[in-house]
């Protein structure tokens, strides 16, 4: 049984490059197309969303302080 598994595994491993070259497989290539501009979009979005998330965090912190002070009054 073990031998058979190994044989199948080897078969798959050796056939894989052949399969890949045989058909020009389209595999989620959006991020690799167009001179990889989508990667830059992703990076800029991460920075923008990260900063906005931080802004929301600060906003909530200030709201918390305001509530604490309102209680003291």
């Amino acid at each position: 049984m073990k031998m058979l598994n190994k044989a199948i595994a080897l078969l798959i491993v050796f056939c894989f490059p052949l399969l890949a070259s045989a058909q020009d497989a389209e595999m989620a290539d959006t991020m690799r197309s167009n001179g990889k501009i989508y990667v830059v979009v992703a990076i800029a979005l991460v920075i923008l969303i990260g900063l906005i998330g931080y802004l929301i965090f600060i906003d909530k912190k200030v709201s918390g302080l305001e509530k604490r002070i309102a209680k003291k009054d």
Partner: protein
Amino acid sequence: MKKSWWKILSVVLLIYTVVGGFLIPVPRLDIVNETIRALYFHVPMWFAMVFMFIASTYFAIQYLRKPNNLHDIYSNAFATIGIVLGILGIVTGMIWANYTWGSPWHGDPKQNGAAIALLVYFAYFILRGSVNNQEQRARLSAAYNVFAFAAMIPLIFIIPRMMSSMHPGNGGNPGFNTYDLDSKMRLVFYPAVIGWGLLGTWIATLLIRIELVKEKIEFIEDENAK
């Protein structure tokens, strides 16, 4: 986070700006090439800065009409975020100039005018920092704020148009709107301006709220000390 529909709007517009700004087709021009997309990010900084300075001057005038500490806090907060946007505008402009004009600082009337305008506003904060009396500080800085705004408008918007300038839209140069035949760039540019204007307002409200919390704490501490 009460009444936050406009905060959400600003986030949505800015995300749209980044995605659309990189991906929507733009006019093909020599030298400028893809850097024409910087229009979506560099120019809105200045628009948002001017919005912030308009708000700051408005509250400065309000203070001069009726001395209320709240107006001073508002005026200061809007000037603070305005200068941050202005610095981002001048730095992004220098990067853009380096690759299209050949050097980061070209001594172009638009660049010099913008730099002087920023220095005029830096002086606003130096003035605030150098007066200890709160009422005096508010009154002096409100008067100076009106002067700074009156100096900023000709420095950035009028003088560069009267002299020979390389900056698009100045000194006889056509702006990018001339090449934007199908108005596709406006579809990204205007949302960007609104988005950054709203984000600046959001940050200004945070600065104001922090200042108000600080004042309340000082008031409570004074009460306790009595």
